[in-house]
């Protein structure tokens, strides 16, 4: 393994980090977001008070990636990645002298540990890498919603009031391309583009599965998607 790791050039230790902006596709959670928004919009139109803001769909997030690799042209190492996607709304409907508080927040996060293999295509400038490992995702659901709406209409679906954090875990893989520019003394900085593959998993709390839209089916959470990052790397000769 060491022979592979150090083949094709002088061995070095590289430590890098990147701040990421990534895209995610979470159809089940966004279905819930739209359900909440339709409900909120319906009540906003019928209550003479300040409207409650709508939730933003979960489409993008921010994250951090830390890597440590050894080798020459072909490098092996470890990677830790974190990401977070959040949406929230807060407000209140005032009706008949009563305030009906609304507060809904979804907070999805991922922490993954992976083994990484990188190939330096152009020394100090261009490299590609793939990684595979295990990740843990969590989904925090904090919701305060009136059980009875301040209108004479009733809706069969209302977001359930809860404050829970659901968790799931599963395999995670990434592929990325890094373009960096030497800054001198082993330091370089640049940008990266990558793709993360994290198969959808349904988070749980004990035996309770995440089912926000109350359709009897679990709501999978996945951090699969493209990312763009700003990377900084330090390289030390061994």
């Amino acid at each position, binding site marked *: 393994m060491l022979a592979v790791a150090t083949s094709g050039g002088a061995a070095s230790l590289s430590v890098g980090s990147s701040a990421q902006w990534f895209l995610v596709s979470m159809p089940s959670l966004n279905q819930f977001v739209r359900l909440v928004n339709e409900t909120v919009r*319906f009540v906003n139109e019928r209550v003479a008070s300040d409207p409650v803001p709508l939730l933003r769909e979960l489409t993008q997030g921010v994250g951090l990636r830390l890597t440590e690799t050894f080798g020459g042209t072909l490098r092996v190492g470890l990677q830790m990645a974190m990401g977070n996607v959040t949406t929230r709304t807060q407000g209140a409907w005032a009706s008949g002298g009563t305030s009906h508080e609304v507060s809904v927040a979804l907070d999805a996060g991922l922490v993954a540990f992976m083994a990484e293999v990188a190939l330096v295509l152009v020394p100090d400038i261009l490299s590609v890498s793939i990684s595979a490992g295990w990740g843990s995702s969590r989904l925090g659901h904090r919701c305060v919603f009136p059980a009875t709406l301040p209108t004479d209409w009733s809706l069969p679906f209302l977001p359930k009031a809860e404050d829970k954090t659901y968790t799931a875990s599963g395999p995670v893989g990434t592929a990325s391309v890094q373009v960096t520019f030497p800054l001198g003394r082993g330091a370089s900085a640049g940008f990266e583009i990558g793709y993360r593959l994290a198969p959808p998993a349904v988070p749980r709390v004990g035996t309770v599965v995440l089912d926000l839209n109350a359709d009897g089916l679990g709501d999978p959470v996945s951090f699969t998607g493209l990312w763009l990052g700003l990377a900084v790397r330090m390289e030390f000769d061994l």
Partner: protein
Amino acid sequence: MKKRGLLLGCALATLLLGGCTPKFQAVPPEALFAIRPSSGVAPLNVVCDGSLSFSEKGKLVEYIWDFGDGTRALGPIVSHTYRRGGVYRVTLEVYDEQGLSSRRDAQVEVQFPPPAPSFVFAPWRPGTGETIWFDASASTSPNGKIVEYRWAFGNGDWATGEKVGYMYWYGGAYPVTLTVIDEAGAQATVTQVIEVLGGPGCGG
């Protein structure tokens, strides 16, 4: 060179596999509706607004309502009148352009209208110790037959039956209450005050 090709191949495979995950999964539409009122006394007219339903991909092409009493309707906004009391399950099923569907239901509680109790008694001005005949046969109910008649004579005594006889031992004004219960379980009461003269009545 071979290694580089292998690495790039793996990267490409990852990207392609990634593209097949949830992003392109078919997401069914969401049936969501509002209802007004969700409870009341029959006949109860209920308005159902299914325009809150939505589809992630494409628009909704069909709204099918089942009112739980054997009737159905089509369209985003419909109304329906429940003629009889009971607990009904209203179901909306929506279909999108891709043929995907989803459903959601809500409960409507319709109370039976109350019966109309009514009674007459004779003699009109009874005396103590004189039998008074009470007759509730004029009572009616829109829900079917009346199955129970309960009488309270205003002095703690009571009786049951469509027609009953009763005598008071002391003169005075007594509120006589009739409660009727129909076969649907709906009930209603009516009260009349009877003046019982201090001595025996004149009719007997």
